[in-house]
């Protein structure tokens, strides 16, 4: 990729983060350029959502720097942070739709809050976004009437409502059937190219994501353990990557959370 280093839209350097005493991220380096669609993969609970929160400025790194569009997220005041966030979109892992508003109002929310568009234009924009995620017919429904997959598609429409420069998707494919999965994948790709934006996607869907993304980072144990373009990843001899791409239970990615061996725990319980 012929991107110049200083043009990076998102730049993480040696980022550390801990919830209380428990260190989640220990030295992450990650770079995303304009026009790029980047995937982040890693085992459940390895800190991917946390990473997105750090980029969005909702969490502060305990060491290292998070830079978005040239601004250090750790140093920004509320005003500047909000100004920057207006140009970011985030799809939350669990949708986080506003339960007291209809689907239409959910997608209209960022537009109503940040623009003074006349009602007719706002309506057109919202319906276009809903059309893009295939839910035009459901604009009058309330979130409680949606299925899980529908809800995250609405959340996706909401995340892209303001045509942001940086879009973060936390597991956009979870709960989607193969058809919508393909459509949403293509949508994410096309949107990124049409807006000239940068996109970061957390996903477990290796096949689908390798077909659309420009670059992949693998996270494990608080570090980036592998990275590369989809072609490099497919060819990779790295055992971590191999395990992930081919979904093998045994390998460097632990399935279990750190704990004493189960035998010991069970014995302990039984012995008492």
């Amino acid at each position, binding site marked *: 990729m012929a991107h110049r280093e200083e043009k990076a839209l998102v730049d993480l350097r040696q980022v550390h983060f801990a919830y209380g005493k428990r260190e989640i991220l220990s030295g992450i380096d990650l770079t995303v350029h304009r026009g790029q669609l980047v995937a982040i993969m890693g085992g459940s609970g390895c800190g991917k959502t946390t990473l997105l929160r750090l980029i969005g400025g909702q969490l502060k790194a305990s060491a290292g720097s998070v830079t978005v569009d040239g601004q250090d997220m750790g140093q920004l005041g509320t005003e500047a942070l909000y100004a920057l*966030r207006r140009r970011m979109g*985030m799809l939350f892992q669990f949708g*986080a739709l506003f*339960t007291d508003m209809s689907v239409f109002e959910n997608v209209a*929310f960022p537009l109503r809050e*940040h623009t003074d568009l006349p009602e007719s234009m706002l309506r057109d924009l919202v319906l276009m976004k809903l059309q893009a995620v295939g839910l035009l017919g459901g604009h009058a429904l309330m979130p409680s009437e949606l299925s899980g997959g529908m809800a995250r598609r609405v959340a996706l429409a909401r995340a892209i409502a303001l045509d942001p420069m940086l879009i973060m998707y936390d597991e956009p494919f979870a709960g989607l059937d193969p058809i919508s999965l393909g459509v949403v994948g293509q949508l994410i790709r096309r949107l990124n190219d049409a807006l000239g934006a940068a996109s970061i996607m957390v996903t477990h869907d290796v096949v689908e994501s390798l077909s659309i993304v420009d670059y992949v980072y693998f996270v494990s144990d608080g570090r980036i353990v592998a990275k590369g373009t989809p072609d490099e990843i497919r060819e990779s001899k790295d055992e971590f990557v191999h395990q992930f791409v081919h979904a093998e239970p045994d390998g460097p990615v632990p399935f279990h959370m750190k704990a004493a061996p189960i035998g010991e725990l069970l014995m302990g319980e039984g012995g008492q």
Partner: protein
Amino acid sequence: MIRNIGARVIDGVWRLGFASRFLFLLLRYSGQSFLRLHLTLREIYFSGVLSLLIILVSGLFVGLVLGLQGYETLQRYGSSEALGVLVALSLTRELGPVVAGLLFASRAGSAVTAEIGLMKTTEQLKAMDMMAVNPIARVAAPRFWGGVISMPLLAALFSAMGILGGWLIGVAFIGVDDGAFWSQMQAAVDIRYDIVNGVIKSFVFGVAVSLIAVFEGYDCEPTAEGVSRAITRTVVSSALAILALDFVLTSFMFRG
């Protein structure tokens, strides 16, 4: 044991500090609640209009009971015409603001806590924050002001309804003289001293209950259990706050 108490005290102080900072932020970001009035109107609907029924019905019943009991006592001293005074003063000074405040806390305050707590649990507040919309300005402040505006109106309705209830029992059923009932009341009830002070009380209670409700929702632990605990805390602390504030305010207002 002692360490436990110490930890609880420290936790309490910490929460008090957070609550003060929260109030400061709430006031600072209140502009939107008035610039975009429909946000606040919506909350007046939820906390005010939807509390109307319980307030009116309870007001009527409290008035009926006051009428009965008051008559019982007064007629022993041969001054049953003073029934109007007794009913009006008890309601406008104390019962109106206090009982309406307690009802308001359990009807509207708990609902506000539940709503905000649930929004927190489902990450709606975080999503809003991520969309560069301040949740304190967009979610908390309109609910706060909706409550602050509703509460004095509800208390006034409660008192008015109660006085009508007292009249119903005293004049319409028992047969106290209608003219004496009203004229004695009017002679004894002072607008500034009794009624305005009552309205001030209900306003203060409105501020306290709304602040507690919004804060507990905002501060709750984001789980189903956390939300239910927050609701309980809203009702309990609101009731305590109302009674304590009532004592303080009464001792300032009605000393003469």
